[in-house]
């Protein structure tokens, strides 16, 4: 252990045992503390404080001169748009995560199945969506969905199917937003699951094969149980990240049409920054907090559970 270096100095200066012992301990803790100080400061000032500050902001009036208590929240609860945003955020997050996890798992499985030499190539290709900055790829999708020039509509036209208002009509707009999110996020799941797949001991599959399991029985009885932890963690992680997503919706639809694709982040931006009503914006984004907190608790529980049953 590196802290042996400190005990080393204790041995050397054996003048007064008690004070040099205290000195040594102090020195290790201080050094360690100093090393983590920038991290602590960074998080305290730019993460924790703003989070708490936003709770304070949410209780002010629009011009931030008066304390209005829960007035902003009352206002929100009465507005239909707010409830629409809540519904949309939840549908968006849950369906996107389900599809991402599913597609990611299936893709990981197939990449794992092919001979090792080819795996690298396919893995490389399938991870590209994740590598491209979301803002840029959202632009590409925007162009692909363009009302007049959509390349997808062109291809559909070749088959005789009508042009689809990808971003113009509420239902399709929601679909498009989820589609782009899945396109962007599935590779992450694939990579995680691929790593987990490789960590399942081959002998378990051999034992299952001898016991008589076919391919889906092997997945159900061996793969999924062994991957339970990683599936849980990535899903929760992704729920949080997807729920708080901003880029994709902002660029594709900016919340439209008619606010029907707004999620918490984009609506908070619209209300708080564009609408110049900071306290209201803060109130909106605070609604993300309870859901994030619940997800965080589950993650914590999973991490400590994994630490305990490290068989």
């Amino acid at each position, binding site marked *: 252990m590196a802290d042996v270096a400190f005990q080393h100095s204790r041995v050397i200066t054996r003048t007064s045992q008690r004070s040099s012992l205290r000195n040594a301990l102090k020195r290790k803790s201080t050094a360690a503390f100093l090393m983590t100080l920038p991290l602590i400061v960074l998080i305290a000032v730019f993460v924790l404080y703003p989070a708490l500050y936003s709770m304070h902001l949410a209780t002010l009036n629009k011009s931030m001169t008066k304390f209005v208590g829960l007035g902003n929240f009352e206002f929100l609860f009465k507005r239909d748009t707010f409830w629409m945003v809540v519904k949309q955020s939840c549908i968006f997050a849950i369906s996107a995560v389900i599809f991402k996890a599913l597609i990611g798992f299936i*893709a990981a499985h197939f990449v794992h199945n092919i001979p090792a030499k080819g795996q690298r190539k396919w*893995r*490389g290709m399938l*991870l590209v969506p994740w590598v491209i900055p979301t803002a*840029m790829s959202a632009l590409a999708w925007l162009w692909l969905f363009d009302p007049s020039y959509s390349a997808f509509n062109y291809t559909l036209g070749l088959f005789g199917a009508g042009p689809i208002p990808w971003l113009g009509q509420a239902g399709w707009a929601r679909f498009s937003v989820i589609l782009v999110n899945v396109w962007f996020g599935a*590779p992450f799941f694939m990579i995680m699951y691929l790593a*987990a797949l490789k960590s399942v001991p081959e002998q378990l599959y051999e034992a299952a094969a001898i016991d008589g399991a076919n391919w889906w029985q092997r997945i159900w009885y061996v793969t999924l149980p062994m991957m339970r932890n990683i599936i849980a963690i990535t899903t929760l992680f992704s729920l949080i990240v997807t729920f708080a997503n901003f880029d994709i919706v*902002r660029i594709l639809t900016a919340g439209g049409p008619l606010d029907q694709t707004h999620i918490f982040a984009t609506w908070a931006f619209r209300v708080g920054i564009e609408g110049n009503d900071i306290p209201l914006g803060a109130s909106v984004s605070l609604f993300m907090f309870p859901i994030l907190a619940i997800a965080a608790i589950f993650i914590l529980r999973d991490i400590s559970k994994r630490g305990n049953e490290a068989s």
Partner: protein
Amino acid sequence: MSTLAIDKAGPRRKVKYGSISRNRTWALRWSYFFLVLFAIFSLTPPFYMLITSLKSSGEIAAATNPWWVFHPTLSNYIELLSSNQYLRFFLNSAMVSVVVVIITMLISVPAAFALARMKFWGSAVLATGVFLTYLIPDSLLFIPLFKMFAAIGDLTGIQLINRWYVLLFLYPTLTVPFCTWIMIGYFASIPKELDEAAIIDGASWFQTLTRIFIPVALPGLIAATIFAFTVSWAQFLYPLVFTTSTDQLVLPVGIITTLVKGDVFSWGQIMTGALLGAAPPLIIYAFLMDYYIAGLTAGATKG
């Protein structure tokens, strides 16, 4: 010697012998089928970006097959690369990203070393806490941060809104927690015997850090660096909020706000801008794919 009372009687489905080779061929066929499908799905947008960037605005407006470029032209590229504005965006992005990477590593590495190796009071709590703060999203923090910086601007006259260097403070909040997490994993996997050997050989803890840990955990460092760079490069929300004048913008925001003039989208240029903007992360990915992936998986599997 009694024989066991287990008999061979028991329902047997009619034994239809399978075939290993047939199973294998079909498994491969299905695998490649789906992989091709997924590859098409994944690569269509970037491919389309490339195609569009090579089209003149005339061809874009024409009713020809959009999936191919018939009269490729580099005019979009030339225009963008000679536009001072675009180059400014690129420069801003590059400066911010590089500096943020340096700041991130300077904060993460010592912190990770302390948390992984030096057991001090509260280290376990701090380590978990670091990971948890990563879960507080930027979309929750941007409003209070905006107000905070505006207030500081009013109080002290230091202009913090609409300055690109503000991002230098904000981006690390996104990169440091995860990078610290990655490095903790790598440092923790270095066997303690290595420390002890170093101590016996007479090294101080600082020397241990610089001469033993950092070289051995180099793959983790590279992975963390790549992660910090790509996250900084791709950031959209914070720059959107905190920078508004054209000369302060970074690439993601710049492309969107300037290439859309009114209701007219000059798509050729937008796609070219987007493609060039996506180029640095893609290039890093192409050459350092293994480190890139190691960075992603390190958090979960080493955790």
